[in-house]
């Protein structure tokens, strides 16, 4: 039994369901996700936390797509070097994407995983949806 128990500990809990947070296109095609709290998560986490996560993600994506001095410079430099600069340097967007990935990982570890949820980086879905995986909540100590 002990082995079984530890085995259960090691197993990843089963996926109960997935929630997909869609893009918010109300402001155009900029990358922005809906911040509305999905009902499936109501029993799993706080609304504020979720909305905060989504808002931060939206801000990060807005920063990535911002047309500013940095993007101008990057464009000019790329032009002048016949785009060979892309072989050596990371674009602004990619840098922010890395930041986003780090943020999501951070959120997962701190907030979502303890609640049996897992955020998936939307870049894996083509920035179309944010996938939230809900894991089955099995109480291991429930005398199973």
């Amino acid at each position, binding site marked *: 039994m002990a082995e079984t128990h530890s085995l259960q500990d090691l197993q990843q*809990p*089963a*996926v*109960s*369901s*997935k*929630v*997909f*947070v*869609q*893009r*918010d*296109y*109300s*402001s*155009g*095609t900029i990358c922005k996700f*809906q911040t*509305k709290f*999905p*009902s*499936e998560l*109501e*029993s*799993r*986490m*706080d*609304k504020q936390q979720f909305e905060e996560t989504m808002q931060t993600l939206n801000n990060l994506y807005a920063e990535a797509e*911002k*047309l500013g001095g940095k*993007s101008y410079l990057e*464009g000019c430099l790329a*032009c002048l070097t*016949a785009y060979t600069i892309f072989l050596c340097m990371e*674009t*602004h*967007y*990619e840098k922010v994407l890395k930041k986003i*990935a780090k943020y999501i*990982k951070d959120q*997962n570890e701190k907030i979502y995983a*303890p*609640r049996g949820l*897992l955020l998936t*980086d939307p*870049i*894996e*879905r*083509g*920035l*179309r*949806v944010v996938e939230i995986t*809900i*894991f*089955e*909540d*099995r*109480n*291991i*100590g429930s005398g199973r």
Partner: protein
Amino acid sequence: MPNSAGKRFKPTKYIPVSTAATLLVGSTTLFFVFTCPWLMKVISPAVPLYNGLVFLFVLANFSMATFMDPGIYPRADEDEDKDDDFRAPLYKNVEIKGIQVRMKWCATCHFYRPPRCSHCSVCDNCVEDFDHHCPWVNNCIGRRNYRYFFLFLLSLSVHMVGVFSFGLIFVLHHREKLGGLHTTVTMVVMCIAGLFFIPVMGLTGFHMVLVARGRTTNEQVTGKFRGGVNPFTKGCCGNVEYVLCSPLAPRYVLDPRKRPHVKIQPPFIRPDLSDQQITIKVSDNGMHSTITNSKSKSSIDGLDGKETQPPLPPKADRYNQLKGQLTSSEESSLSGKTHPSTPAMYRFKPSFGTMPKVHYHTAGEKIVMPDGRKNSAILEEGVRSDYRSEPNLDLPEYANAPLHRTFQSSPHQLDADPTNSRTLSLKQGHHRPEKGQLQVLPPQTVASTAYKGVFSPNTLSNRNGSLSYDSLLNPSISPASANECMAHRGMPSMGFHSPYLPTKMCHIRESEIHRQQVAQTYSPVMPPRGLGRQSPHLRDREPSPVRYDNLSQTIMASIQERKEKEEREKRQMLHGRSQTHIYVQDSGVFDAGYGPPANASFLDGPRGHGSRGPTPPAYGGSRDNLMGVGLANYGQRTPVLRHAGTTLGRAPRTSSTSLHTDHSSSNSSQGRAPSHEGSYRSPTHKPRSPAMPRSPSYSHQKLSYISAHDRTDSPRLGGQRETMKVNGQMDCHLSPSRHGNVKKVTGVGGTTYEISV
């Protein structure tokens, strides 16, 4: 390319790009070799330098346009699209800066194409901000490489102009040696440049206009914004800036990279539950709730839920299943998302215990019940916002909420027909102000109080609770009617509301009904049903809230007869509810016919059986009439229907019977704006007067609205119409003729609201 199953090496597609590359490089090389030395000597060394730079620029942009990923979307995973595949509507509306934009379902990629995205048949990919597929570079031009393509065109034009000019200078200075090698070659180069001058310059000019207007070639050629407003434009300067200076977009088709592994181990932290949030976790008998995602599709599939659905399940086979789901969805949507996937559940999991886990859907922002009406409105709001642009989540939310509610408040019938219980619970839950605002229900009567008591969580599992409630009110009330009574009375969410309630009960209820009309209307099933049912019945006994002014005597008589018959049947059916449901579902008949009476119709209702109007418009009534009625009723029921409609609407994506079509249409038309409809209805119903006067306008409005949308939807599979989800608005796909029918029938059938004028 991704998913290139069966892709063969097709040399023909490389011909244009090879030709273009050969001409470009070859001609320019010849120019440099034969013309430039003289130019360098005679004019200046800057000439070849300038030409060299321009040529380098052309090459760089040409390479980027050719080899860069234009913004290909990876295929959606199975689990993302499993709901949408054959139940989802073909189109989904989204509002962008106040303008409705349609997103089409891509059958290849399994997602709704984001705005400006299009599927390239040559590359077999959906491309973001799709411009066109350019054969000269053998690549799609999309968001990521449009800038390079545009710069390529610009630089090529400049290069051609330069080459032609300098060649002309050379030739003019070598007129006497026209037969010479250098001159001949230069002339050949000039001819090539001159030949391609017009097409290239034309294309460049075309794209300059596109960039200035902020459109893609695809949009321009298909005339999307012809005469309309382009929601994607940022003004001329903004558009130019966006094209030239925006950061390079990321690639979506990435190598599978290692996901950071996050350890997830139960037990999990749960949020603190406030009073409002009463989480009732129904033990799932192995049914993992896919309700969140799939619109109860998983439930139908036996819920293994998760992502075991084949990408394209046989649509025809599933239609009934879908319908069941839809019904449940509809119901839920109507009742403020309390819709349990009853039909589906019932069908596949007759036992209540097998209901999947349901998350309590806190009213929270959604359901605020200061009073019945408001609740409806707010519920609608919540409902509406739920599905707004959220194809995946809409139904699940509906499904979840209702189920949850059901458990929460349904005092009875847990063991009975799941559908009924669900319906009831829905309503109850709905009206059970999560915020403890029981006072929402008209508290005036003892009944209501009793009702509340009955539906407290304590009585959740006790069907007797309702009976006891009934006994409080009227000991003589039979259990069946008592249940119904209760349902009708307090709860707009009562699933089936028997029109055959005893006089006394009806009498008591009437006032409440009026009050709760709004709420009732909100719940798809309830309103028409409850009132409808009630009306004829009541009429016998006392003034009905529904106006039967326009009903002929004979019709009324027949209605009464029928009602009584149904009542009897219903009593019998109470236990054979399942059959009814199945009947409802299987038949796929939107026969509002009273079919198995209230229950059946109730169930059917959400499915868009149209309003099942409690009374079939014509007993002999043809199905059309019934359907018409149903449609009319549907108006009320819109939210539910819409919800269901949505799912049904999806059917269009798959083959569906014509019957479905009808219903789907009606369902689709319902669209997903339960909230919208609900709100719409609320005011209508407020006045207690039968919805008749109102519904016509409502129906009309919807009709017109639907019509507008219908017209725009060209592709119709099987004549089905895609569910148009207008933000918060419902597209009613009622046909005008149907509308007309509805008008008459509704009134006759006692359908309370939908009577159109």
